[in-house]
C-alpha cells in the first residue's frame, strides 16, 4: 500500500513541477490566429456578426449581408449563427482567447449590463463620430437603455414593453367586465377566476416577472442600489400574499417550464409576459384568445422594456466597420422583416406600422413611453439566480422568510 501512496504523491509532485515550469514560461501566449481575412480583393474589410436565433432570423441577416455593399462597398459581412445562446457564451471565452470572436453581436438588455460592465463591449460614441452613423434614427427611450454611465453601447434594434395577459374566454365566462388596470382589480378578478384546475394568476418566480411587479410599485433594483427599497418590499409582499391566498401558481409546481405553457394549457387565467406569447400561442394553442394589456398599476405605471441591440466587442479588429455593419442591420428592409416576425422596431417611423400589423398589442403603445430597463446589478446572473432561489425557497420550500428578509438578505450580497 505504501507503494501506491508513493506513486500517488509522485504524480502530484510531477504535476506541480509542470505547473510551475509552464506557468513561469508562458500561459500568456496570445493566440494570434494569423489573419484569415486574406484581403486580396481591393481592401475589403471582413466583419463577423454573431447571433443565435431562428432560421428566419438567419435569412434576414443573410439578405443584409448580401446587400451591405450597396451602402458600404468596403465591407464584407459574414454571419455566424450559434446553435443557442448558451452555446454562444460557452464558446465566447475561447474565441476571445484565440482571437476568433465575432466583431459584433445582437443581445437583449436582460443580460447586457453585466457584460458591458465586465468589459466585453466597446462604447461606440467615438465610432459614431468617425463613421457618421446617424443615431438620431432611434428614439431616446431606446438609446437610454443602451447607455451606461453616459456612454452609448448599443445600436437599438427593437423595443417592447412587458405585458399582462388575460385568457379572454375565461374572463367572459366569469362575467367579469372591464379589463383591470390595477393589481387590486387583478386580485379581485383572480378570486373569481380561481376554480378547479385553473389558477387565477400565474406568477412565475423568475426575475423578469418579479421586476415588472416591483416597477409597477414605483420600485426597481437600481443596478443593485435599491434592492430592498420599501416599494420593492411592498410588491413582493403582494405576490406572497397572492400565494398565501391560493390565487397564484408558479409554472414549476404544475410541472411546466415557463408561464406561457401554463397559459396555453389553460391552467392559469392571467399572467405577466411579453410579445413572445403571440408566436408561442399560435403554435401551442391556436384556439386560445388572449388579451394583452399594460402591466397593471401598483402605485404607478411601470414595466420593463425588452430591447435588443447590436453591440461591438471590445477586442474586435475593425470596430468602425463593425459599427457601420451594425447600423446597416437597422435599415428599413431589415426592420420591416423583423416586424413581420413580431418585433417592434426601435425606429420611431416604423413603430407606428408595427401596431397596425399587430393590433392585439395596440393597448401597449402608451407603455412604450414609461417602460424602462431592468436595472439589474452588475452581477446580473448571480442576482437573478439569488432572487429566484430565495423566492423558490419560500414558495416551494417553505423557508418562512418575509419579503423584507428576502430582499435584505439579497441586498447584503450586492452592496
Amino acid at each position, binding site marked *: 500500500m505504501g*507503494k*501506491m501512496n*508513493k*506513486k*500517488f504523491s*509522485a*504524480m502530484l509532485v*510531477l504535476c506541480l513541477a509542470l505547473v510551475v515550469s509552464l506557468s513561469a514560461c508562458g500561459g500568456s501566449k496570445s*493566440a494570434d*490566429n494569423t489573419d484569415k481575412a486574406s484581403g486580396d480583393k481591393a481592401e475589403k474589410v471582413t466583419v463577423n456578426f454573431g447571433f443565435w*436565433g*431562428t*432560421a*428566419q432570423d*438567419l*435569412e434576414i441577416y443573410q439578405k443584409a449581408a448580401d446587400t451591405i455593399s450597396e451602402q458600404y462597398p468596403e465591407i464584407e459581412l459574414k454571419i*455566424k*449563427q*450559434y*446553435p*443557442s445562446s448558451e*452555446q454562444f457564451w*460557452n*464558446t465566447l*471565452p*475561447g*474565441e476571445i*482567447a*484565440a*482571437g*476568433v470572436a465575432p466583431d459584433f453581436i445582437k443581445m437583449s438588455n436582460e443580460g447586457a449590463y453585466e457584460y458591458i460592465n465586465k468589459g466585453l463591449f466597446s462604447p461606440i460614441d467615438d465610432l459614431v463620430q468617425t463613421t457618421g452613423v446617424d443615431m438620431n434614427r432611434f428614439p431616446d427611450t431606446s438609446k437610454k437603455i443602451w447607455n451606461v454611465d453616459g456612454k452609448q453601447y448599443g445600436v437599438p434594434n427593437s423595443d417592447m414593453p412587458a405585458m399582462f395577459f388575460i385568457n379572454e374566454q375565461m374572463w367572459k365566462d366569469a362575467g367579469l367586465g372591464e379589463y383591470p388596470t390595477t393589481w387590486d382589480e387583478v386580485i379581485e378578478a383572480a378570486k373569481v377566476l380561481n376554480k378547479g384546475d385553473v389558477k387565477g394568476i400565474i406568477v412565475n418566480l423568475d426575475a423578469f416577472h418579479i421586476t415588472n411587479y416591483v416597477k409597477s410599485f414605483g420600485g426597481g433594483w437600481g443596478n443593485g442600489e435599491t434592492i430592498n427599497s420599501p416599494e420593492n418590499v411592498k410588491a413582493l409582499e403582494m405576490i406572497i400574499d397572492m400565494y398565501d391566498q391560493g390565487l397564484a401558481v408558479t409554472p414549476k409546481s404544475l410541472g411546466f417550464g*415557463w408561464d*406561457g405553457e401554463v397559459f*396555453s*394549457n389553460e391552467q392559469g387565467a392571467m399572467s405577466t409576459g411579453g410579445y*413572445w406569447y403571440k*408566436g*408561442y400561442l399560435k*403554435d*401551442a*394553442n*391556436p384556439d386560445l384568445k388572449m388579451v394583452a394589456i399594460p402591466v397593471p398599476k401598483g402605485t404607478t405605471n411601470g414595466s420593463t422594456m425588452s430591447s435588443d441591440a447590436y453591440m461591438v466587442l471590445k477586442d474586435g479588429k475593425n470596430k468602425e466597420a463593425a459599427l457601420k455593419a451594425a447600423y446597416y442591420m437597422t435599415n428599413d428592409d431589415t426592420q420591416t422583416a423583423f416586424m413581420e*416576425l*413580431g418585433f417592434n422596431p426601435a425606429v420611431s417611423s416604423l413603430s407606428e406600422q408595427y401596431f397596425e400589423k399587430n393590433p392585439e398589442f395596440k393597448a401597449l403603445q402608451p407603455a412604450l413611453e414609461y417602460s424602462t430597463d431592468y436595472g439589474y446589478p452588475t452581477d446580473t446572473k448571480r442576482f437573478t439566480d439569488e432572487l429566484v432561489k430565495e423566492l423558490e425557497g419560500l414558495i416551494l420550500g417553505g423557508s418562512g422568510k418575509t419579503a423584507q428578509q428576502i430582499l435584505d438578505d439579497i441586498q447584503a450580497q450586492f452592496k
Partner: protein
Amino acid sequence: MLTRKNNRRLLLYIGTIILGLLFALPFLYTIYTSVIPMRHVNTLTSPANWTFENFKIFFTNDAYNVPRWFLNTVIMTGAVVIGNLIINPMAGFALAKLNFKGKGLIYWIVVATMMVPYHMILIPVYVNVAQLGWLNTFWGLTVPFLYQGLYIFMLRQFFISVPNEFLEAARMDGLTKMGAFWRIVYPLARSSLITMSILAFAGTWNSYLVPSTLANTPEMYVLVVGLNSVKDMFFENTPMIMAGVVLSTLPIILFFFLFQRQYIEGISNAGVKG
C-alpha cells in the same frame, strides 16, 4: 418438474417484459411526443392527430442539412472509435500485464483524467485547437479524443482477469509479449472491446458540448448539434426537439442492436488448454 420449470420461465419472461417496458417508456414517450403537433404536448391524443411534420421540417427546410450532419457524425464517430480501439487497449494491457517503472504513475494519470469535468479545460482546448488551425475541421473534432481515460481504465480491469497462462503459452510458441497481445489477448478480449466500442460510439455520437464548441458552422455541425439548433420562434418547440432526439438516437440503437450479438463467450470458448 417440467411444469415448475415452465412456470419459472414464464415468470422470468413476464418480469423481463415489465422491466423492459419500464425502461422503454421514456423513449416511447419521446417518440410519441415527436409525432404530435405542439398543441397536444402533455396530453394523450389519438393516432388520428399524429403527424410527421416535425420530422419533415428537417428534410425540407434549406437551413437544415441533415444528410451532411449525419455524414459529419459518422466520420467523427468512426475516427474516434477506431483510435480508441488501438490506443486504449495497448495502454490498458500495459497497465494490467506489464511490469515497468512508472506504471503506478500512469495508472493514476488515467484515473485522474476521468475526474476533471471537460468543461473546465474547454477554453484552453479551444485555444489549442484554434492555434493549430483546426477549428471547424475533423482534426479538431477527433484528435483530442482518440484516447479516453475511462476506457483505458475499463480495459485494464478486464485484462487483469486474463489468465497469465495465456501469455506464457504464447511465449512458449515463440511470440513476444507484443505479439502475444496483438495475436492472443486482443482477439480474446473481444467482448470487452465490443463494450468499449459501443460506449465510445454512443458517447461520441451523442456528444454536444465539444462538437458545438469546436465546430460551429452549419456545414460542420454534427447531428446532435444541428438538430438542437432548430428552435422555434422564442421558446422550444418540444415535439420538434423530440423528433431531433429520435433521429439522432436511432442510429445508436441500431448500432447497439447489431453489435450486442457479438457477446458470445470469448475466453471461455477458447478454453485454457495449456
